[in-house]
């Protein structure tokens, strides 16, 4: 390594770490985010309140209600006596669902006829409502089995096993995905801000006319976010097994290797953004215009294969999408080196392209 480059790197690290507020802001928030958001991000629906509007006083209806009350998913049951009260409970979001048991329900059960219960659910929260509906079906099946035991085993029973995450714990999914997102947000943010601040202050032009080559300036600028990213990820890799008991199934070496390529790509994106921005504000906003869609396209909020074809093509250019597969794969599935490589080379291509755009833009601005 030549001394010019070394001096540049030292200067860059110094610029980032000099300000004590800056030091704290780079290291503490990612940890807070991990703890807070892993607790908040749950797609399970717990502690919900269910309304019961029962116009049947028979044994079957009482059995159903006691089964409902015993379910761990529902915290509170509220009795509803009139149709108006039902409407108010849903409209005012006091209850996410109201179960309506009509007259004759117990009679139908006693007569061994198929019996029906109505459920009114709040479609404003369509996702949570669907999950609650699943719980209600479970309660109905249990009640049915108690009231009318099946004489023989059903044909073709299903034995479902969930590999890699037997209890389908959502936390196991969210922890590896937070590494992907927080890593991208902090690395891109630091890159975009550090370059655009120099542009705003005019010191970037001085750098460009110094004996430093363009690539040396870029490498110098890449170092702080790269080291910061590695530091934060290492902190995560220590906290996740210790605090959450989730141990990486795959190879740690592969994880770091893929992580370096990933950081290179997101830093490249940050460089490209700051290369076309004149002020810090533009760089910051430009980052937002990219990062929010990139998180949405990564497969974190919904599987990529559910998206329309043209959007799946765009998602291929999203480094978060590829690294999410690697992070989940290495943490939970013990992915092989070949599979990791198959998902890493697209990230490398994205990194090379964004860096090339950045270099080209920097040169264009100077000349």
């Amino acid at each position, binding site marked *: 390594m030549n001394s010019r480059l070394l001096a540049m790197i030292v200067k860059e690290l110094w610029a980032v770490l000099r300000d004590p507020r800056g030091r704290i802001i780079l290291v503490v928030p990612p940890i807070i985010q991990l703890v807070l958001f892993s607790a*908040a991000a749950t797609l399970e629906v717990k502690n919900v309140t269910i309304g019961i509007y029962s116009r049947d006083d028979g044994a079957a209806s009482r059995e159903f209600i006691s089964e409902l009350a015993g379910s761990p998913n529902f915290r509170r049951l509220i009795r509803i006596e009139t149709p108006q009260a039902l409407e108010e409970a849903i409209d005012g979001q006091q209850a996410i669902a109201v179960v309506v048991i009509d007259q004759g329900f117990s009679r139908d059960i006693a007569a061994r006829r198929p019996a029906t219960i109505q459920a009114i*659910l709040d*479609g404003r929260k369509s996702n949570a409502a669907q999950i609650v509906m699943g719980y209600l079906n479970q309660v109905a099946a249990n009640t049915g089995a108690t009231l009318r035991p099946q004489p023989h085993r059903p044909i073709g*029973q299903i*034995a479902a096993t969930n590999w890699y995450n037997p209890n389908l714990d959502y936390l196991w*999914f969210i922890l590896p995905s937070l590494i992907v997102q927080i890593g991208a947000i902090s690395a891109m943010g630091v890159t975009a801000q550090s370059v655009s601040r120099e542009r705003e202050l005019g010191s970037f032009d001085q750098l460009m006319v110094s004996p430093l080559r363009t690539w040396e300036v870029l490498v110098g600028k890449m170092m702080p976010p790269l080291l910061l990213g590695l530091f934060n990820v290492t902190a995560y890799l220590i906290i996740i097994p210790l605090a959450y008991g989730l141990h990486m199934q795959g190879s740690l070496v592969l994880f770091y290797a893929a992580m370096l390529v990933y950081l290179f790509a997101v830093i490249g994106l940050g460089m490209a953004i700051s290369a076309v921005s004149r002020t810090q504000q533009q760089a910051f906003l430009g980052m937002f215009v990219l990062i929010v869609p990139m998180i949405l396209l990564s497969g974190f909020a919904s599987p990529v294969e559910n998206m329309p074809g043209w959007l799946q093509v765009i998602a291929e250019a999203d480094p978060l999408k590829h690294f999410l597969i690697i992070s989940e794969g290495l943490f939970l599935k013990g992915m092989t080196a070949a*599979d990791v490589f198959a998902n890493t080379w697209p990230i490398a291509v994205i990194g090379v392209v964004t860096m090339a755009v950045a270099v080209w833009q920097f040169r264009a601005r100077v000349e």
Partner: protein
Amino acid sequence: MSGTFDLLRFTAMLGKETRQILRDPSTLMIAFVLPVVLIFLFGYGVNLDTARTRIGMSVQDRSEAAASLAGAFQSSNYFEVTEVADPDTLGRSLVAGHIRGFVVIPQDFGRMALRGGGTIQVVTDGSSPNTAAFVANYAEGMRQTWLAGRTGARGAALGPPIAINPRFWFNPELASRFFLIPGAIAIVMTIIGSLLTALVIAREWERGTMEAIMATPLRRFELMATKVVPYFVLGLGSMTVCTLLAVLVFGVPFRGSPLALLAIASAFLVPALGQGLLISSATKNQFVASQIALLTAFLPSLMLSGFLFEISSMPRWVQVITYVVPSRYLIPPLQTVFLAGDDWGMFGRDIAIMLGFGTMFFALAMRVTRWRIA
């Protein structure tokens, strides 16, 4: 710091601030391009409603029952099935992420089924818990339909004794974009209200132009007003863009009144702008301001507002934190004004809380500013 209110001075200052915003293409990009991108992504991309899921299948039994069950999976609308002979390759595909689960119909299935038994093995990829649950549930649904088809009329008697007949009010088709789009509005207004404002005013502090303005006869209240009014208008503008797109292009119903929407959005912008102002006055540095705004305004709006994740399902200590996230009070009225209609009881309460937060943020910002100058 002294002097009386002067309308001419005020409007001149307001005009200056507005021109400054309009001159910068990045502001307009965030106010109008990002909403369009977000609404399109939520409309097309973020599909929480599962489409066809790729699964693998291995049929190791040659009986008629196994063949007909395999056929039922093949023709299902929920699955895209790849059949292989060797179940080991299925495990490898699952690790690589090519399939989301697989079904194994074992050797003795036909023989067991004749006697009223037989087990179908379903393995899902638990690393995506949602999709895994969908795969298991749809496989069970498949089995029931297949069985009902085979047993014919007898199937009715074998069906579950209690059926639940669901009705989803406000959104009978359960389109997830209907509830994601109000969330998109919340995100965009948070970015404009808190992030943009924090950054812009921090820049004035960083460059020292803020002190220069403070030395003029302009009163502190006027100064703050001229700084935030243009962003208030910008926030409402991008909210309008979101709403028009959502309703006209994506067919999201709008059952409330425009007046209610305007009132809710305006009330939310007060704490959002107040927070931006407070952050910028307290940090006076664009980089620190942007990171704090990201952490205290943007990420909470995304994760803690109840738009993606149910607040009632969160642990108690996180629920307590959500009470101080202003967008928590924005999401329910927004979802209601779009999907249900006007409910002024709910709107009034949430608007009052948001204005309360706003007042607090502005008061704090004033204090911090005075203290910084002194």
